[in-house]
């Protein structure tokens, strides 16, 4: 768990970054078009600077993987830079850089997405490049081998040598016995060792198709021109049959689960997860919005309850956080966590965090607290407009999780309509013992001369 990220009001960013009603007179913007082959294009014109943010999102992520080949979604994302029938390995990056741009990509449980930030005049070239690698990717064996090594280094860097990341990985594996969020996005090391080029090829052919993707453009562009460019680049592609998605639902949890992670570190750490609903019906659901507001009141801003009461007040913790994201494809968790202050135990911190939720369950929240969340909601809508990246991410994330970008305004209104009673009600309902999962980092002395723990040998050949 990256506590800084954890406590920076992530809870708010899922919903609270919708288009601002009062400052956006042209309600036609963004614009949307759908090709006959199912590819959708969403264009948001933003003419403040001569730049364009171009993204292609695929509705496939680590949650669509199966055991034995975890990590293949993310590895394929790396391989998408390794050449097509007409492009050599690395040439994609080179072209983008040569046009003054920068590019990258990211994989989550829910989606895989690729983006380029370029001068607006370079957008036509970007659209062609992305269309090319949607159909014409080549996976060379040598390139595959080398890139797999890079991904293993990435796993060592981000997870294996990061005790806090291990706690998160193992908590997810504990919270979900059956649902695919139990598997890490980057994949288990042993699965990486066993991945073969044909696994990546199969993944690509199974999921990379116009009817499983959408294009998002934000910037100094004319939407009609973008539509034309997209039509030209993707129009000839055929609809592909997509596999039926068999996402295992998590069976009800009927008792609390606790795990301990031992790793070289100085400070213990606590991370707790409860299973809670995510947003399914934007119009009629109420609880996910109430949970968003609850997360905001606990840890959404400088004056929120957890830092105020536990870091500054009782000083039981040096860091605390709450996290809930209502907008996901899969099942949702509400997390609370932190680092106990010196002389305080993990058990004391756990009790204190749970007492904060219980206090809301018993006493509710104040009108001022509720109003503050609404104020921050409106402000964050405006601040968002300073970044084309953030605006494109909002559109992309909503679409990836199965909502429509048009839902943004409604979601914002819904968050603003949450009452104190609704916040109190979800605090009462969802934070019991039986659906609780607890992971604790038990810090071990750093022995400078110890070697990393041996792992089971892979089947690599």
């Amino acid at each position, binding site marked *: 768990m990256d506590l800084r990220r954890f406590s920076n009001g992530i809870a708010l960013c899922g919903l609270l970054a919708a288009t601002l009603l009062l400052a956006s007179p042209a309600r036609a913007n963004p614009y949307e078009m759908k090709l006959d082959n199912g590819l959708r294009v969403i264009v948001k014109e933003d003419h*403040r*600077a*001569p*730049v364009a943010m171009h993204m292609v999102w695929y509705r496939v992520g680590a949650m669509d993987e199966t055991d034995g080949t975890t990590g293949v979604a993310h590895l394929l994302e790396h391989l998408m*830079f390794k050449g097509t029938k007409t492009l050599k*390995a*690395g040439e994609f*990056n*080179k072209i983008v*850089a*040569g*046009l*003054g*741009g*920068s*590019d*990258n990509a*990211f*994989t*989550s449980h*829910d989606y895989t997405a690729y983006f380029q*930030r*370029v*001068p607006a*005049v*370079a957008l036509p070239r970007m659209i062609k490049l992305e269309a090319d690698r949607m159909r014409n990717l080549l996976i060379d064996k040598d390139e595959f*081998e*080398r890139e797999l*090594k890079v991904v293993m*280094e*990435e796993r*060592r*860097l981000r997870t294996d*040598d990061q005790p806090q990341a291990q706690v998160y990985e193992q908590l997810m594996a504990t919270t979900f016995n059956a649902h695919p969020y139990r598997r*890490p*996005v980057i994949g288990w090391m042993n699965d990486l060792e066993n991945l073969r080029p044909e696994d990546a090829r199969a993944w690509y052919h199974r999921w990379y198709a116009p009817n499983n993707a959408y294009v998002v453009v934000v910037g100094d562009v004319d939407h009609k021109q973008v539509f034309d460019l997209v039509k030209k680049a993707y129009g000839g592609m055929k609809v592909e049959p997509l596999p039926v998605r068999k996402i295992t639902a998590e069976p009800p949890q009927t008792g609390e689960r606790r795990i301990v992670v031992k790793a*070289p*570190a*100085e*400070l213990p750490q606590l991370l707790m997860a409860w299973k809670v609903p995510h947003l399914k019906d934007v119009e009629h659901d109420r609880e996910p919005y109430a949970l968003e507001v609850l997360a905001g009141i606990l840890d959404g801003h400088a*004056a929120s309850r957890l830092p*105020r009461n536990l*870091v*500054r007040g009782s000083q039981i913790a*040096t860091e605390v956080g709450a996290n809930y994201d209502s907008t*996901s494809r899969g099942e949702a968790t509400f997390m609370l966590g932190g680092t106990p202050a*010196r002389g305080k135990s993990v058990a004391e911190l756990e009790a204190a965090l749970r007492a904060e939720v219980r206090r809301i369950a018993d006493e509710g929240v104040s009108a*001022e607290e509720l109003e*503050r969340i609404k*104020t921050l909601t409106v*402000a964050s809508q*405006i*601040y968002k*407009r*300073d*970044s084309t990246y953030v605006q494109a991410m909002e559109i992309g994330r909503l679409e990836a999780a199965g909502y429509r970008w048009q839902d943004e305004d409604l979601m914002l209104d819904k968050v603003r309509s949450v009452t104190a009673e609704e916040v109190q009600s979800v605090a009462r309902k969802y934070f019991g013992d039986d659906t609780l999962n607890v992971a604790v980092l038990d810090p071990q002395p*750093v022995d*400078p001369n110890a*070697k*990393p723990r041996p792992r089971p040998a892979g089947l690599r050949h």
Partner: protein
Amino acid sequence: MNTSFRRALSRAVFSFAAALAVVPAMAAVDIQHWVTPNGARVYFVESHVLPILDTQVDFDAGAARDPVGRKGVAALTQGMLDAGAGGLDEDALAEKLSDLGAQLAGVVDNDRAGVSLRTLSNPREREGALALLHTLLTKPEFPAAVLEREKARMIAGLKEADTKPDSIGAKRFARALYGDHPYGRTATVESVSAIVRDDLLNHYRVHYVAPRAVVSIVGDVTRTQAEAIALQLTGDLPAGEPLAPLPAVTMPQATTERIAHPANQSHIFVGQPVMRRGDPDFFPLQVGNYILGGGGFVSRLTKEVREKRGYAYSVYSYFNPQRQPGPFQIGLQTQRSQAADALKVVDETLAGFMAKGPTDEELRAAKRNLVDGYSLRLDSNRKLLESLAVIGFYGLPLDWLNKFPERVQAVTAAQVREAFQRRLSADNMVRVIVAGD
């Protein structure tokens, strides 16, 4: 949601350097500059497109100004500006800030310490938020009880960092580069334990003064309003006393430090002190560095270490120009058993680049990226504010941004090679390897 990024963008510092790139495609950035009656320097870019105001106030109050043996004073002073001010306690200040929908962020590095504020530009929010910023800057109270708590939190963080190979390496690297120079000393459990409230009061009194304040303003206010804002924020700051310049940096002797650690990966640092802000070699060195290891996926280091050999997820190089010569640094992390091989590739790549310089094609590609990508690096108020703050603090010329493209264009391959050969030397190259076999 756990998002796993493909590659870390090459490092904040390059994008920071690149944030000063300019392309003619975009209208010139009009930086307005003036000095308040009590000596604060103000830099302003007017932009009414969004109803947002961004303001930053920096002082010559960074970590290099920490008293000897009390490393951590600058960070604590800056960090506690909002821990109680103008008769309001930290909770009341936090509530006011949140009720206005405003965002506050701190800035502390070797040279600078300051605060940035983002607010809506409507009069109610703007005036409320600026009044709050004024209170933090001019009436901080540094309550003793909060100091004890913040010291404890800092010490906990330091102890944790001392178990992590990247933090251990970064500290040892700074020490090996700069020795006893202020840039070489980092906070320790001992230095923070020794800090008392008077240290903060003294640091604040000596360094948070008008003649060394730099106010950067970007956004939805007029010049007249910006002048009033600058006066409001700095008018109550004292004149202070002149400050001695930082000591000169002594070049280190080449050395290789190996630090045992049980991590899976070795963390490798290679570099030496090189460049100040305003350095005449800035352009050849920065353009050259883009080619060597600053240009992300297309750099030579990425090609050799990552693409050809799969040794690392992230490998980079950067220059970090500061008041005194800041570091040139190459960094990477690799499976510990192949640390020696990876380091050899890094050494050969650097040596090859220094001996022969860039190819014509590499130079052309670098210029295209740095020049044509200008608009991307200044396309938001936030990015403009960062650039403005650097220009203001280091006294760079006001046309720095607008002249950037032609200066990049003018760089030749021979200049890059010559500048690298003259400014970098194997005799001064420091290596730190944490957790190598």
